[in-house]
C-alpha cells in the first residue's frame, strides 16, 4: 500500500456531528499505512439538496472539489461519507458519459475539471485496495461477545452502475472486513434498508419509523451492536434512538459504531482517539469487554478442551459404520 497515495475528503459532516467517523477513519488508515493528502480549502459536495435544484449545478459543487484533488496530482479520493462519495461518483459518471454535460458543468466552475479522479468509500479502499489479509494482520485485540449487524445503508453500493462496488442486493464487503478483524457479524437482513437519510429534520416521524425497523431487525438478528459507514445513518440510528423510543414507544438501547471504530478497537487504539466517547448510545461495555488476542486464544483453547471428547467419538462411529459396510 505504502507506494500508493490517496486524496482524503472528510466533508462537512465529518467536520461536525460525525467527527468520530473522521477520527477513526484517519486512525485506521494510518494503522494500515495508507498514505493520503487532503485538498485544502475543499467545499461542500452539494449532497442531496443540490440535486433537487439542478443536476449540472449539483455536479458543479462536487466537481469543484474533484478539481482541487486533480490539482494536487492525485487520482483517487477516499470519501468516507457516502453522500459525498455518491455526489462525486455521480458527477464523475455523467461528466465522462457526456461531453455536453461536462462542458455545462465546467462553465459554472472557475477552473474546469478534467474528470481525472476516481472516488472510493473508506470501506471500498479497505476491502479492495488494502485487502482482508492486511486488515487481519494488524489485529491485536478481540471483542468477545460482540455481535455486530453490518449496516451498509442505501447508496454505498447502489445503484450498481454508479457505485461499481460490491453486490447491490447482498453486499458482503463490511461483513468480510469485520470478520477479517476477528469480529462476529450476524446475518442481518436489513443491510440496505433506508434509515430516512436527510429527512431527520423535516420528516422526523418518518425517519423514526424507518430507523425503528432497522434497529429492531438488527436485534432480531441477534446483534448487540450495529456497524455503520455513513454519518446520516449513524445520526438517525444513534443520536435519534431516544426519539425513536419516544415515537414508537420502544426502549431500544443498542450502540451504533462506525465500522472504523470497531477496527480501531481491535487494533488496540485508545477509545478517545477513535471518538467512542462521542457516541450518544454508550459503547463503553464494548470497550470494557476488549481483551488481547493472546487472552482470547487461551479462552478458546480451554473451551476446545472442554468440548474435545464428543466429536472424536462421532468420527469413530462413522468409521465403524463404513467398516460394517466393507
Amino acid at each position, binding site marked *: 500500500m505504502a507506494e500508493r497515495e490517496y486524496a482524503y475528503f472528510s466533508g462537512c459532516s465529518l467536520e461536525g456531528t460525525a467527527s468520530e467517523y473522521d477520527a477513526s477513519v484517519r486512525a485506521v488508515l494510518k494503522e494500515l499505512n495508507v498514505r493520503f493528502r487532503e485538498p485544502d480549502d475543499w467545499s461542500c459536495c452539494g449532497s442531496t439538496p443540490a440535486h433537487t435544484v439542478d443536476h449540472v449545478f449539483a455536479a458543479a459543487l462536487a466537481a469543484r472539489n474533484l478539481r482541487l484533488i486533480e490539482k494536487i496530482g492525485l487520482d483517487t479520493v477516499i470519501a468516507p461519507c457516502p453522500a459525498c462519495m455518491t455526489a462525486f461518483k455521480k458527477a464523475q459518471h455523467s461528466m465522462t458519459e457526456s461531453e455536453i454535460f461536462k462542458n455545462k458543468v465546467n462553465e459554472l466552475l472557475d477552473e474546469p475539471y478534467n474528470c481525472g479522479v476516481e472516488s472510493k468509500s473508506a470501506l471500498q479502499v479497505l476491502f479492495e485496495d488494502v485487502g482482508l489479509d492486511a486488515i487481519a494482520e494488524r489485529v491485536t485485540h478481540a471483542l468477545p461477545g460482540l455481535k455486530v449487524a453490518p449496516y451498509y445503508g442505501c447508496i454505498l453500493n447502489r445503484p450498481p452502475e454508479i457505485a461499481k462496488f460490491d453486490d447491490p442486493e447482498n453486499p458482503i464487503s463490511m461483513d468480510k472486513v469485520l470478520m477479517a478483524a476477528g469480529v462476529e457479524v450476524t446475518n442481518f437482513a436489513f443491510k440496505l434498508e433506508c434509515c430516512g437519510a436527510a429527512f431527520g429534520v423535516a420528516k422526523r416521524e418518518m425517519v423514526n419509523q424507518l430507523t425503528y425497523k432497522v434497529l429492531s431487525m438488527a436485534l*432480531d438478528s441477534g446483534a448487540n451492536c450495529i456497524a455503520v459507514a455513513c454519518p446520516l445513518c449513524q445520526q438517525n440510528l444513534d443520536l435519534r434512538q431516544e426519539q425513536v423510543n419516544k415515537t414508537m414507544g420502544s426502549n431500544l438501547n443498542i450502540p451504533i459504531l462506525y465500522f472504523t471504530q470497531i477496527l480501531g478497537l481491535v487494533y488496540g487504539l485508545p477509545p478517545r482517539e477513535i471518538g467512542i466517547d462521542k457516541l450518544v448510545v454508550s459503547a463503553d461495555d464494548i470497550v470494557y469487554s476488549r481483551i488481547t488476542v493472546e487472552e482470547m486464544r487461551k479462552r478458546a483453547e480451554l473451551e476446545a478442551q472442554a468440548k474435545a471428547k464428543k466429536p472424536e467419538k462421532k468420527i469413530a462411529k462413522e468409521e465403524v459404520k463404513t467398516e460394517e459396510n466393507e
Partner: protein
Amino acid sequence: MRVGVFICHCGSNIAGTIDVAKVAEETKKLPGVVYSTTYMYTCSEPGQEEIQKAIKTENLDRVVVAACSPRMHELTFRRTVAKAGLNRYFFEQANIREHISWIGTDKELNTNKAIEAVRMAVEKVKLNKPLFSSSFKINKRVLVIGGGVAGMQAALDCADGGLEVLLVEKSPSVGGMMSRLDKTFPTIDCSICILGPKMVDVAQHEKIKLYAYSEIDEIKGYVGNYQVKIRKKATYVDWNKCTGCGACMEKCPSKNSYDHFNFGIAPTRAINIPFPQAIPKKAKIDPEYCRQFTKGKCGVCAKICPTKAIDYEMQDEIVTEDVGAIIVATGYSLIDMEKLPEYGGGRYPDVISGIQYERLLNASGPTSGHIVRPSDNAEPKTVVFVACAGSRDKSIGIPYCSNFCCMYIAKQAILTKDHIPDSQSYVFYMDIRSPGKGYDEFTRRAQEEYGVKYIRGRVSRIYPKGNKMVVRGADTLLGTQVEVEADLVVLGTAVISNADAGHMAEKLHISYDTFGFYVEGHPKLRPVETNTSGVFLAGACQGPKDIPASVGQGSAAASKVQALFSKDMLESDPAVAKVNINACVGCLKCVGTCPFQAIKEKELRDGRIVADVIETVCAGCGVCTSTCPCGAIQLQHFTDNQILAEVNAICLK
C-alpha cells in the same frame, strides 16, 4: 435471350410504397427484357398461370419475379417456370418487399430502388445456366437428440412408422423435465402415470435404439447421409449386468451427493438410480462424490453388487452411427436462483424453485409427497408463489415470457391446498398468461374454488424474520406495498436455453437466437424445420413450451422425417461447385478450404492432377470459388460472372 419480368403488388404490401407500374414500364426498357407486367398476387394460382401463359405466348426463356423475399417463394416460382417447360434455374427473384417496400417510406426512392433490384436480377438471370440435380440414396435411419417428452414422441412416431430410430439422452434416464413433474395442468393428471408408459415403449420398441447417458460428439455429412459420433459416458456400472436392484444405493456411504434429478432439493447417494420409474433402470456412479474416486478407498458398492456390475475403471466409449435425418429435442434449463439475489434463493433454504417444489409434491420424491420446508421439515401453512422470477426481466437479459409458469403455479397452488387443507397460498403475478384450452378456467378455479390469493405486482425483496420468510411486494391494484409472512416461498424461475445449446447448434450447423434457442425455418410456416435440410426441431429447445405443444412438435417433426424418407432417392441441389479441368492448375487449395471435404484430387488420363467435386457432398457455400487463384472452380448459379453482373448492374452508369 427473352426475359420476362413480373412485378407483384402483393396487395398494398408492395404497391403501397412502390409505383409498380413505373417499375414495369422502366424495366421493359432493359436490354433482353421483352415482356414486363404487374400482378396483384403473383404467388397466387392465377398469378402463376399468368407467368406460364406469358412464357408460352411471349416465348420467354428467362423469368424474373419482383416480389417478396426469395427465402419465401423462390421454390414456388422455380416450380412455376419448370411446369412451363423452362429449366427451373432460368428464374431469379428480386426482393422488393422485405428489402424495399417495407423499410422505406419515400415512394420515389423505393420505386427507383425496386427498378434497380429488377435490373440486377435481369443481368444475373441472363447468365443463368440450366442446372440438373442428380439424385442420391438416403439412409432411412433417424437420430433423435434428447429423451424428453418431445424427443420420445418423435422417436415413437418415427418407429411406429417403421423407421429405425436412435434416441440419445444425456442423462441416465429418459423422461426429461416431465418425469420430474407431479401433476400436469389443467387436468391434474399424474405426470409420470401418463409419461411412464411412453418411457417403457421407448425402451421396448424394437425399432428404437436407446443411448442413455450419452452425448453427441460430432456430426458429419448432409441430409440423407450423416455420420454421428456418440459418446457413451462412463457410468462405472456395467449396464449389461446391472439389474437395477438398488442394493448399492442403499449401502453407499457417501450420502451427500448432489441429486440432479431432484434439482438438489435433497441429497442422494454417490451411486444411484435417479428415480423409481427410470428408463433404463440402471445405477450410475457420480465420481464427484464417490469415495472410491475422491478418497481412493471405499468399494462398498462393488462388494454389495450381486451381479458384480461395478467397474471403477470404466472409460467413455465412442460409437459411430449413420443416419439420414436428425430431430433435435434437447429441451431447456431453468435460471439459477442466485441470479436473483434480492429473493435470496440459494441463500435461504425456504426459498425454492418451482421444479424443486414439484419434487416435494411428488409421491416418488425425496419427501414421498409430503410438503415440508427444507429448513426444519415443518409443514408450511403459508406458501407464496412468485411468478416471473427472472422472466420478462431485461435487467438480467431475459426479456421474454417463460410461457408455462403461470399455469404450473396455479396448479401447484391448487395441489398445496389439496395436500394441506388449512394452508393459504399467495401468488404474486404481473399478468396471468393462460391462453391454452381450458387454461384460463383453471387459473380461475385456483382463485374461486381453492381460495388462492392472487396479488398483481412484483416481489421486490424476500428476507427471513424469525422462522418466517417475509415477502415484500406490491399490490398495484390497491396501489400499496404489501408483505406476506410465508413459511415457504416458491419462485417460478425463468426458462433458459441449455448451457451447451450453442455448441450443439454448431455441431448441427443450425442457427440459434440471442438467448440460445434454435431458430426455426419460418416462424409461421416451417415451425419444426431448420434452415439445414434434414435437421428438425421439437419442443422447448426452440423456445419455452408446455407439454402439449412439445408433444405436438415431436409428432410434427416425426411426420416431416416420414415425408423426407418416403422417397428412396433425394434430389441433390445442383447449385454446387464445378471444376473447369482446362483451367485447373491442380494447386488443390480448394481441397484444403472446403468445409465439407467435398473436393478430392483426381488424376486425368494425361496424368494431370486436378480438383474434383463430389456433387452430393458439396453443400454449395462457394468458399472454394473465392479461394481458387484461377477461377477454375465455380459455384454454379453463383459464379464470379453472375455476381459481378449484379455488381455492375448497380454500380456502372
